């Protein structure tokens, strides 16, 4: 087995190097795979450990994509669905789970517009059918210094991008989250400018790791996790992954993103996970894994690009301290 070493010498438990054959030869991996629930119908351990009341969502079938499964133990569904930053439903981490019941995820349409040859309005059902659904287990690193491991369901954002045929002018992709006061009580606070806008450079959006997600833990997305459709960009801090998307716009200029507008010195446009670039108020060198690094455990080291070193090429020659 090939083990990649990150610059700081930590083994990247990156499953893209693991072939299915090895998977069956190595009992350890088999058990680990079982534990991460990435074998179809084999999420038994997870299921058993899960509290019965925790998952009530609609099931969603997806084929595990072994190329995109980290070996880390997935975070409990209960933690992943009750500890959220989704300010449209309140600024406390327990607010979204409490308040997001008012979000109506059907009918739902996503407008795709801007620098594309084929602008379109896609409803959620056509989005679900646009490409085969895959399950991918990604690390999620929040800019606040905590992390989770989440089995998402979706497909590469590039599948959608290909379909709408961006023009030569398309340099960036901008994602807009729903902003409806009737459904989102948090909009009355002025913590951020609404609607929430996030964005990626075209090459980032086209990177196969960038996921358009419609589900997690074998089910459709819970509202508080960004239902019915969101992006997941695992090598960037969590806030870059826009939730409950209603508009995807291809642009010539760099999008004006919500957190960057709110505090430009703290949240850059790129916001790649980077242990060497501190947030002004705390270090980003380490992180606390939710559910594991509890009271009596040391925090774990944060990996460059959250361990997704494949993406490094896109930033070759860029000063990542300047473009943080």
């Amino acid at each position, binding site marked *: 087995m090939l083990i990649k070493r990150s610059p700081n010498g930590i083994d990247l438990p990156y499953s893209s190097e693991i072939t299915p054959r090895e998977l069956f030869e190595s009992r350890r991996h088999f058990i680990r795979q079982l534990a991460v629930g990435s074998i179809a119908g084999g999420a038994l351990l997870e299921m058993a450990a899960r509290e019965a009341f925790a998952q009530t969502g609609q099931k969603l079938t997806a084929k595990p994509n072994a190329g995109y499964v980290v070996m880390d133990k997935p975070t409990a569904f209960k933690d992943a669905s009750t500890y959220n930053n989704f300010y449209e439903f309140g600024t406390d981490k327990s607010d979204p789970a409490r308040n997001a019941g008012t979000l109506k995820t059907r009918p739902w349409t996503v407008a795709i517009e801007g620098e594309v040859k084929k602008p379109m309005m896609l409803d959620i059902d056509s989005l679900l059918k646009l490409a085969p659904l895959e399950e991918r287990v990604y690390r999620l690193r929040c800019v606040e210094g905590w992390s989770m491991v989440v089995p998402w369901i979706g497909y590469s954002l590039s599948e959608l991008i290909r379909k709408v045929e961006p023009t030569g002018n398309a340099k960036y992709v901008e994602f807009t989250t729903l902003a409806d006061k009737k459904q989102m009580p948090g909009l009355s606070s002025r913590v951020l400018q609404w609607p929430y806008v996030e964005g990626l450079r075209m090459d980032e959006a086209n990177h196969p790791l960038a996921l358009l997600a419609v589900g997690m833990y074998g089910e459709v997305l819970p509202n508080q996790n960004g239902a019915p459709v969101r992006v997941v960009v695992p090598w960037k801090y969590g806030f870059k992954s826009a939730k409950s998307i209603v508009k995807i716009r291809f642009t010539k200029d760099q999008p004006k993103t919500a957190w960057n507008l709110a*505090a430009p010195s703290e949240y850059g446009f790129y916001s790649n996970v980077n242990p060497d670039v501190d947030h002004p108020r705390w270090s980003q060198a380490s992180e606390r894994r939710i559910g594991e690094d509890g009271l009596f455990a040391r925090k774990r080291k944060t990996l460059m690009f959250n361990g997704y070193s494949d993406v490094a090429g896109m930033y070759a020659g860029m000063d990542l301290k300047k473009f943080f």
Partner: protein
Amino acid sequence: MPAALATLDAAQLKRLKALLFLAALLPFARLVIFAFTDRLGANPVEFITRSTGDWTLYFLCITLTVTPLRRLSGWNWLIRLRRMFGLFAFFYASLHFMTFLWFDHFFDVSEMLKDVVKRPFITVGFADFLLLIPLAATSTNAMIKRLGGKRWQWLHRLIYLIAPLGILHFWWMKAGKNDFAQPILFGLIVAALLMMRVYWRFAQGQRASGVARPAPSGQ
């Protein structure tokens, strides 16, 4: 009712003090119970840090309320509770600091100090904690005697600096998120409590013009 409260005998005061002592321990008891029953949520360290920080600010506000309330109500026995409230502010500040040192830095003192030097928000919180130490250390009757009432009082006016610095620490913590509702509320409360003192001092100074220092009426 106010007539009954205006004077408390020693036994009543003792009972009230015991009751308030137990009540002030409730936030701590809650954390301990939550820790042993797995109810600290997905991020226990964050929960404990926020809870102990909040309670430090609550007790700073309560401590600063004693004198104005005593003055407005005429309940002189309130002064007998002030030390306990102040010490509880120190107690929760110590837990807050310990959470930072233990759970956040795992007793890596050099890493912790790096944080203190590098980040204004932590610098202020740390300095604020250091300022509380001499007040807690000189809170006994013996220390009041040793320092002499006047010097002791001057030292304990540090609280007028400690409370605003605590709010600044909280303000900067919330700054990145533009979420100022709570720091503003704390700021207004502390500002009101301090302004009352400024006003009284000014009014008193006018009345007692010519007198070098007004009699300390229970700062």
